[in-house]
């Protein structure tokens, strides 16, 4: 029998074409949307097993580590082995971190407040990010011969750093990441020299094989904080885009320290406040020792200010001026607590 072309068949076909075009456009937009790729990467990091060699660079320093990471039944286990000949190892099981220093014959055990792997995702990249960062399209790139997408998240001002992520197209793993300053200089870089994603990782691979006989086992006292005193704190003038997002997990201790969190959506700055009743020690010629001011640990900047008998320290992976501004903008508020930044009452 002969097929007869009905008018509606033609219009259906046309509709299909139109629908397809819309679908195709949507797909290709999603393929270039940096947020989609960052979500995929976060997902991969949170769910996949991996075993790779990571080159970590921080300024002039470079460390090469093998990193074995397993997520099984919702539990994180991670083992990092240094390749520098020192034999150092770091084993993380959920909230516990055990660090082996065979060169010093010590093992340090510590509890952390959250269960996180050493390679973190980048949560918080959303529509709001565009006001503080310039997010380009996910550009096609090649990393060690494999198709990847380069996501560039550039800061719009000098109060924050930028990120570059090379995300493997097939696995969504971040095969290379950079943290960079506004002037383009690279502060920190992680590169996977090799990486596999095994479906199963043997328990044996996640345990240190070091003979620890005769080692000293040390327990690091966790920061023994309990929520600070009644005084509430408000920030007078935060850097653009930063707002107070909550308090850190600092319970269980007996040392009253307030741990406040400020974030621009991507980066988080911690502020620690404790009363500092002892005056700074004096040097021989009677001048107080400079015990506060700026400090730097790797990519993290810190700034300590003294105010009304309190020591206020801001710490975060932001430029030094940002932690300084935040630390110096905090003021104690009498009585009633206010979570949001408030101008001082006159």
């Amino acid at each position, binding site marked *: 029998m002969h097929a007869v072309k009905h008018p509606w068949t033609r219009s259906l076909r046309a509709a299909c074409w139109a629908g397809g075009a819309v679908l195709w456009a949507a797909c290709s937009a999603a393929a270039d949307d940096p947020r989609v790729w960052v979500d995929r990467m976060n997902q991969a990091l949170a769910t996949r097993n991996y075993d790779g060699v990571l080159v970590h660079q921080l300024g002039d320093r470079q460390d090469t580590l093998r990193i074995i990471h397993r997520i099984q039944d919702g539990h994180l286990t991670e083992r990092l082995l240094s390749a520098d000949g020192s034999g150092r190892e770091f084993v993380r099981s959920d909230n516990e971190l055990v660090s082996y220093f065979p060169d010093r014959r010590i093992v340090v055990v510590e509890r952390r407040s959250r269960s996180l792997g050493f390679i973190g995702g980048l949560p918080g990249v959303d529509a709001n990010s565009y006001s503080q960062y310039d997010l380009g399209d996910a550009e096609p790139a090649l990393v060690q011969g494999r198709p990847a997408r380069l996501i560039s998240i550039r800061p719009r001002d000098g109060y924050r750093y930028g990120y570059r992520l090379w995300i493997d197209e097939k696995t969504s793993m971040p095969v290379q990441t950079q943290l960079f300053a506004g002037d383009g200089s690279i502060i920190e870089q992680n590169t996977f020299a090799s990486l596999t*994603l095994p479906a199963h990782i043997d328990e044996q691979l996640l345990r240190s094989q070091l003979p620890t006989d005769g080692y000293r086992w040390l327990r*690091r*006292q966790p920061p023994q904080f309990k929520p600070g005193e009644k005084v509430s704190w408000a920030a007078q003038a935060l850097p653009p885009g930063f707002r107070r997002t909550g308090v850190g997990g600092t319970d269980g201790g007996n040392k009253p320290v307030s741990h406040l969190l400020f974030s621009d959506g991507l980066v988080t700055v911690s502020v620690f406040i404790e009363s500092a009743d002892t005056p700074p020690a004096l040097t021989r010629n009677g001048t107080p020792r400079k015990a506060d001011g700026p400090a730097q640990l790797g990519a993290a900047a810190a700034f300590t200010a003294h105010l009304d008998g309190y020591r206020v320290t801001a710490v975060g992976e932001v430029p030094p001026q940002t932690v300084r501004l935040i630390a110096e903008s905090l003021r104690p508020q009498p009585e009633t607590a206010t979570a949001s930044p408030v101008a001082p009452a006159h």
Partner: protein
Amino acid sequence: MNETERDSQLSALFDGELAADPAALVTRRLLKDPALRATWGRYALIGAVLRQEPLLQPAGGRADLADRVRQSLLAEPELAPVAPPPVFAQPRAGGWRRGLTGAALAASVAAVALLVLRWQMPVAEVPLAAQPSSPSGAVVVANVAPQAASGVLPEPVVSSSVEDVAHSYTTPRQAAPSGARLAAHLVDYVVAHSDYASPGVRLSSLSAQMSGSMDPAENTVEMTKDEVGARR
């Protein structure tokens, strides 16, 4: 006494934690042993850096740096009784040996300052044994990325000025008494913050421990035999 014990005694002496008798013994050794004195000098320097005493002037060269370190060290009351002058002596006509010591100190001071300021460390090798590659999803197996291997990253954010000098995380065990307190606080803070740190940079604190610029034994207590036994 092995090297570790010696170091820990020296550290205890530096912290003023050693009883009178062992203190006298260590002090005598200190006066005799140049290596021990060098260690002491490093502790003192690190203490000075911790307290942010100005080590660098914007236009200063290395000699200037060493001189400033020397002055700041001599100004330390806790160093005065034992700080051996020859180590810090300036080169002088007729005293070539002292000159050498001074130059060596200047060099080592510069080296330590570099370490503190820039985290300068040797580039690690990649001697990992080949692993049986996984059938599911082998991703990347290649050489280290070229820029990683050549180590040509620009200056980090630190070290551009005196203001930026790290004044913490460089302490061997505990630094000078007054500096140590702040350092311990900051270590606590950084540990507490690291759980909220930006992705990727969580490795920073690890890197600091590996480089020895953050003492892994800071703020720790010895575990009991039972605790250790339960872990094995």
